[in-house]
Every structure is written in C-alpha cells, then in structure tokens.
C-alpha cells in the first residue's frame, strides 16, 4: 500500500469482494439460463416448425386434390330433373382448400425467413457471450486476487497498529468499529457471503496461477 492509500473501512472492501463473487456467480447463471432457453427456442424454430408445416402442406395439398375430385364429380352429375348442378358448395370447398394451402406455403416461407434471421442473431450473440465469458475467466480471478492483496495489506497494517493519518496515509476506522460492523451483519447475509467465499476459493487458486503465468 503506497502513501496515497485511503481506505475508511476494511469491511467495505471485504463486502465488495463478496459482491464480486455474487456477481460472477449470478452472471454465469444468467448466461447459462439464456443459452439453454435460446437453444430450446432455436431447436423449435429449426426443427419442429418446418416439420409441422411440411406435414400441414401435405394435408393441404391432399385437401385440394380431394376438393378438385369432388368438384369434377359434381360437374358430371345431374339433378333428379336432369338439370346440371351449380356445384357451388364444391367450388367453395376447393376455394377454401386452396386458401389453406396458400396460408401454409406462406407459413413455410416465414419459417425459413425467421430461421435464417435467428441463425444470424444466434451467431452474433454467441460470439459476444464467449467474449464476455472469456473476460470473466480472466478478469474476475485477477480482480479477486487484487482485492485479497489489498485486504491482506490493510489487515497487516491494522494488526501492527500502523494506521491513521499521522503515520500512514491509510485511514481506517478504529478496530472496535470494524468489529461492530462485522458483528452487526445479518446472519443470513453472513452465511451467504461465506458460501460465496467458498465458491471463490477455487477461483483464487486460478488467479494465483494466472498471476504466476503472467510473471513467468
């Protein structure tokens, strides 16, 4: 710690370290959750949707074929008095069948369009997400390691009684105030912090390895 150090509360630094652990944990959870959900949606769009509409197209084409047959049969038949039939119902049925087929063909076009757009967006997202994860992998362990060094230095100052504006530029609260601040923290919050600390212990080991690697 150089002479320009100015720390009013070691607990504040310690709590920020815990907050950083919580963030790293929650951010990864959010990315994993989004990744899982987006993959599920993409699978639906790439596989289930085309399969469904291809099946619907076959049905629609069969319906058109059947409606044509029905119309043709109606045209060839006569009323009891020998008059030709109007075939109005059959014409309408054919019109409806053609309309349904057109609707399904449009759905297939839309599905192709959105699959292409989603594929492009998915690649964009995954590229960004990988960059962010790589940044987390590199920066979070280093940030935690730096905070640990800061905390160790501050605690050694406090333990040695070498603190206060007259002896060091480092400014701390009296140890009693620190103790009270720690003691007054809610038990649940303390338990959660302990949990995060444990989760981050492996991260610290990784940070040390990174530090050693960068020095080498």
């Amino acid at each position, binding site marked *: *710690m*150089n002479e*320009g*150090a*100015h*720390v*009013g*509360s070691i607990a*504040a*630094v310690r*709590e*920020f370290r815990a*907050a*950083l652990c*919580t*963030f790293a944990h*929650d*951010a990864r*959870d*959010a*990315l994993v*959750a*989004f990744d899982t*959900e*987006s993959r599920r*949606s*993409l699978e*639906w*769009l790439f596989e*289930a*949707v085309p399969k*469904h*509409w291809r099946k*619907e197209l076959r049905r629609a084409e069969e319906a058109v074929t059947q409606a044509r047959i029905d119309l043709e049969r109606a045209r060839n038949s006569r009323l009891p008095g020998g008059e030709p039939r109007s075939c109005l119902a059959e014409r309408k049925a054919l019109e409806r069948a053609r309309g349904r087929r057109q609707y399904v063909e449009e*759905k297939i076009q*839309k*599905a192709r369009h*959105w*699959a292409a*757009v*989603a594929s492009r*967006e*998915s690649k*964009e*997202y995954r*590229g*960004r*997400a990988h*960059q*962010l994860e790589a*940044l*987390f992998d590199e*920066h*979070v362990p*280093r*940030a935690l390691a*730096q*905070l640990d060094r*800061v905390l160790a230095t501050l605690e050694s100052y406090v333990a040695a009684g070498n603190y206060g504006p007259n002896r060091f*530029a480092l400014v701390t609260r009296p140890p009693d105030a620190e103790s009270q601040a720690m003691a007054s923290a809610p038990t649940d919050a303390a338990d959660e912090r302990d949990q995060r600390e444990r989760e981050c212990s492996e991260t610290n080991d990784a940070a040390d390895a990174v530090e050693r690697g960068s020095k080498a």
Partner: protein
Amino acid sequence: MRTGDLTAGAAKLQESWKKLRAHWDATTVEWHDAVSQDFEARYLDAIEPQLAATLDRMRALAQVLTSAQHECEQ
C-alpha cells in the same frame, strides 16, 4: 412455445451488473485512492462495454425468437 424466459435471462444479467456497480459506488465512499481507481479501470470499466454489447445481442435474439414464434406458430 414460449420465449418469455429469454428476456428474464437478460434482465437477470443486467440486474446483477447494476447491483455490482451500486456496491462499487458504495465501496468507493470508503476506498478512494490510486489503487481503487486502477481497480475500477482495469476490471469494472473493462467488463462494462462487453457486458452491454452482450445484453444488446441477447435482447436482439430474444426479439427475433419472439417474432418468429408469433409468425410461425400454428
């Protein structure tokens, strides 16, 4: 098919970052020196633009999938 959980993922990521930033702001009231400034620049300021860009892409993909769902459903 529902895509509501996609927006929840982006919201959770953004909320986590906001909490960390707010925590850092509170921390700098007690810790403000060259080391804390370096820490902020080196780590927090470096993460922020990458995180914002990722959030943009998450929202864009969620929007595309929502539109696809609307247009392609039975």
